[in-house]
């Protein structure tokens, strides 16, 4: 049988890949958004695994809402991205450093 621990470690790995993806990537911002999605999927896996092993649906319900939030977030994220593109003509991460210090 697959233990709970296996699922959790899997999601931990995915979670970390998501995190790493955010900060190692200097290409474009859209990848950042995708990494955020990855993080959320990892968390969702966590919740589902717990829910399954606890025999308690609350976790799954939570995932349901996380998916909703994620969708909304993507909508806004892409909107901002579009605005950025309109303003700077690029979505390169490096262009967004006029605010610093």
């Amino acid at each position, binding site marked *: 049988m697959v233990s709970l621990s296996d699922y959790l470690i899997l999601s931990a790995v995915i979670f970390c890949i998501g995190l790493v993806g955010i900060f190692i990537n200097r290409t474009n*911002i859209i990848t*950042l958004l995708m990494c955020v999605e990855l993080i959320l999927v990892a968390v969702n896996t966590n919740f589902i695994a717990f829910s399954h092993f606890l025999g308690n649906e609350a976790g799954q319900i939570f995932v349901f809402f996380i998916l909703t939030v994620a969708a909304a977030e993507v909508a806004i994220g892409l909107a901002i991205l579009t605005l950025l593109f309109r303003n700077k003509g690029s979505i390169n*991460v490096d262009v967004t450093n006029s605010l610093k*210090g």
Partner: protein
Amino acid sequence: MENIYLTIALAPLLGAIIAGFFGGMLGRKATHTITILGVLVSTVLALYVFNHHVLEKGEIFNQNLYTWMQIGSLNISVGFLIDNLTSVMLVVVSFVSLMVHIYTIGYMDDDDGYTKFFSYISLFTFSMFMLVMSNNFMQLFFGWEAVGLVSYLLIGFWHHKESAVEANLKAFLVNRVGDFGFLLGIGLVLAFSGSLDYAEVFSSLDNTTNQQLWGLDLITVICLLLFVGAMGKSAQVPLHVWLPGSMEGPTPISALIHAATMVTAGIFMVSRMSPMFELSDVALTVVMVIGAITALFMGLLGIVQNDIKKVVAYSTLSQLGYMTVALGVSAYSVAIFHLMTHAFFKALLFLGAGSVIVAMHHEQDIRKMGGLRKKMPITYWTALVGTLALIGFPGFAGFYSKDMIIEAVHFSSLPYAEWVYYAVVAGVFITAFYSFRMFFLVFHGKSRVDHHTEEHLHESAPSITFPLIALAIPSAVIGYFTIDPMLFNGWLDNAITIDAEKHVSMTELSNIFHGAAAMIPHAVQTLPFWMMVGGIATAWVFSLYRTQWADWVQNKFHRTNYALESLYGFDRFNEIVFVGGIKKLGNLLWKVSDMGIIDKIAVNGSARLVGFIGSVVRPIQTGYVYHYAFFMIFSLLIILTWVLFAGDNPLLQIEF
């Protein structure tokens, strides 16, 4: 009586205030009338008081006027102690002061600060009265400093003269060095006696037995500290440097303050403290030795001076040395006696010098004078009286006092007394030499006065000559009349304490004393007389008979001459070590320590450090979102590690 005492003190104060604040309105005549009147009242009353206390042997008056402060059981008051010592001092001070007031009318006639000057000298008279009438240390210090203040103001009276303002600062500061010791002495007095009142202090002297401080008896330390104060005020070596400089002030001031009264405050003070000084042979020896050094070496300096006032100033120093020697050998009354005679003849000499200076249109160099005898007869004769009194010509006032000092030293059993004896005897020769050198150069010989001045040369105004005459009389005779009662008939007994067993000078003196008249023939047989004669003769040779010899001697002994002309290098030493050194030190402390280390490094440095940290931390905020993310994740790592493995209770133990 109380009102009389009060009037003595306050009359000149009133005069000073009126002259000071309303002098401009009242005009010159009214101003000098009022101030002279004030001092005249004091003088008359002083004579009355003298009569009451000394002649009629009145009770000692000791009473507080008002409480200056009351702290716990300590009461510090302003009050009067009038005994015979005070009475004598009152007479001397008021009389000389009166003469100087009158003299000033003529002397300061053409000065803009006429009314101010009267205000100052009246204020001085008041301060001096307060000093001598004080019944406690605090008030003594008050008067002590007040006379210093007036002295400061008067030396710098001609404030446009750079040398004058230089001199007054120097005078004040050197006096402050003395006050430094004086104040500490007062502090120690308070510490052992719990009081500042003379009577209470003297009655609790037992408290000091067996107490040590700095390896000396407590009482010795106290006396020495107090004597440091006296050294400042009475210009004893090495705190004498201010006195010659103070001659920058107008001549009446030199007469009043820097010859007759203020400089003797130290002598007066030590006499006042005789019950304390008597307890310490060490202190007395120091006093004596310092006095001797001053008497001898300052006299020597008088020889090479060419400024008429400077010569008199150095003679003053030398005479103060004599007084101090007298104090040292416990002949307090002799010191006071010399103080008195000296006050008269030295004031006379100064005023005479002033008269000459006025006549010479403020030319003070004796090499540019000569032959004034004919032009200024009154001045000449009074100056002769003064000079004879100064050198101790038998019969004149100075003779009695100085002779007594020399004899007293002779009888002293203190260590080094022999050396001191030789010093004071040698001093007699020197005194005679420089005094007559000056006298001859000024009044005799060929005139070296320039033509322009020569034409206007004439005897001074009556307001100047009157004080000269009035002072010449006591200079001549006062010694004769007062030596007996003052020294041996107990005029000062109720003020002065002598441990007759240990210090025998006075007892011995009274044994050999057979009346004033008898002293004159006796003196002729003694060494000091011949020293004096030798001095006069030498002066005659060098200044009239063979003037070129003087140059020859100067060249021959150029090293000695150099030492003398550079005043033994005291001024130079002070200039370099104290003034220069302290300025350097001050700059060092200010620039290096204060501004550099404390302000720049510690204060601004820490501010800069914060700023520096800020500027180091700030670039972490690069503006790149991936940096931010990395920073967050990295922090997550740290926190996670810390929570899991660190702390008192690590959540996870790693097993290897």
